[in-house]
């Protein structure tokens, strides 16, 4: 398996092929396959424990896989020779628990990685950070510490922080699950703006309305396998598998 294959935009930007993952004796992913084209928005839904978050974490190599392959822009993610840090410059991730660094201001949170890891010029990064915080509608909050911001504001800083690395793919792991209903909207608007600008997004989410409006493709996972997938219109209107029907019936 060659480490780098020349990748062109007509090939999937993220290709997940027959991935198996176990934690000890518990099998969490049992043969998952998924292709994402550049610029697409993919939503993964399913009951808890079905492996959705684990799948996302496998894409940016936070979690190793037991079998199968994941390729990002043609690069095999779980190649032991792959520089993980290089991968993470291409793939950004936003977590459910925001995970902002509490001892740094919002601006510093956004600036830290490009300055320290990419070794970019500080002034340049600062300008970009201001622009990004403005984009996520947090103008004026740059000198605030995470403890002074609401949940929704913190999550938007987290999104800006990941965007500062100029990734090609963004992963969102149930980013609105820990927020109150009022603040959920402001985060979803931010993600929608991103998607409309052409960012490739993989979302694990419970926000069905959002998914229906924005997704190019929907996937339903249950107990470690993809049960059903399709474009949102068909997916929500005519679920074919009984498990999908049951799940959608419970939440809609």
């Amino acid at each position: 398996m060659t480490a780098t294959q020349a990748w062109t935009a007509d090939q999937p930007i993220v290709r997940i092929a027959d991935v198996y993952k176990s934690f000890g004796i518990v099998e969490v992913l049992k043969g998952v396959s998924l292709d994402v084209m550049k610029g697409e928005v993919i939503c993964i839904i399913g009951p808890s424990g079905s492996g959705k978050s684990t799948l996302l974490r496998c894409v940016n190599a936070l979690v190793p896989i037991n079998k199968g392959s994941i390729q990002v822009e043609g690069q095999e993610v779980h190649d032991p020779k792959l520089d993980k840090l290089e991968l993470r410059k291409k793939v950004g991730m936003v977590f459910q628990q925001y995970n902002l660094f509490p001892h740094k201001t919002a601006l510093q949170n956004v600036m830290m990685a490009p300055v320290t890891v990419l070794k970019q010029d500080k002034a340049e990064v600062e300008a970009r950070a201001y622009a990004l915080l403005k984009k996520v509608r947090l103008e004026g909050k740059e000198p605030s510490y995470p403890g002074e911001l609401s949940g929704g504001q913190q999550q938007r800083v987290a999104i800006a922080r990941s965007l500062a690395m100029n990734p090609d793919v963004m992963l969102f792991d149930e980013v609105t699950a820990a927020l109150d209903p009022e603040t959920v909207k402001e985060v979803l608007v931010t993600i929608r703006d991103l998607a409309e600008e052409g960012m490739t997004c993989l979302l694990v989410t419970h926000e069905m309305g959002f998914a229906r409006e924005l997704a190019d493709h929907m996937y339903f996972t249950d107990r470690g396998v993809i049960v059903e997938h399709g474009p949102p219109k068909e997916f929500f209107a005519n679920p074919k598998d009984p498990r999908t029907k049951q799940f959608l019936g419970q939440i809609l």
Partner: protein
Amino acid sequence: MIGGTDLPVLLPAAQRLAERVRREREVGAPIPRLQARHGAWIAVILVFSAGAAGAQAGAGQESVLSIMLKWTPLLFQGFIFNLAISFLAMAGGTVVGALLGVWQISLLPPVRAGSWLVTQFFRNAPWLVLLFFCMFLLPFQVRIFGVVIPLPDWIKATFGLALPVMANVSEIVRGAIQSIPSGQWESAESLAFNRRQTLWQIILPQCVKRMLPPWMNLYAILTMATVLASVVGVSEVMTLTGQVLSAEGGRTDLLIPFYSYILLWFFIYCYPIARLTVRLERHFAVKT
């Protein structure tokens, strides 16, 4: 403000109380009033015993209080020496202990196992035994790069005290690092920080606050442990006290006043540290 003043003393009583409650709520704990109760207890013992000793003294003997005042400068010098030993031992032990603590979470198994072993060994050994060990087995002088450095007793004792400090600091650091939520490590990793950057720029700065109360507690324990050096022959405040007592003819009625006096000094030094530690603990707990 009612009455156009914010000096608590000038406010009526109810407002004074409300002020105090508001200040206490900010800190998250009842602010202790040191001077009133606590020092008074020991001062009571001191005065009582000095009085008793004075009553026992025959005519022509000096009063206990004047004897104590006479010897105070010398004993105070000894006490300062104890404090100096405590500073040095704490400084040395903290530096090495912090390194050990970070090595305990190393990804390399031999480093992890080795530092764990060293930490457990020096934590489980009694402080006095370690002192004896250092006193007897360290050479009385070392030769570094052709320069001969003498090692007097008190340096050996300082080294002996720094060893358990090192082990305890190692545990404090490790505990603080492990108490940082794993989400911090995850998000740093997904931002392409390598392990060293994550540790030094993100994890350790957050740990400093958490480490402060147990570290200060350790310092108080260390300060009290410096008197152990008297057992191994270092001339600090306890040995001086013993010498003073025999210089005064071994009068048994001087024992309680003098030992209470020394206890009082240690109390005055350590008690504020203890209260500050408790306040800091509650302050940081409330914030997170």
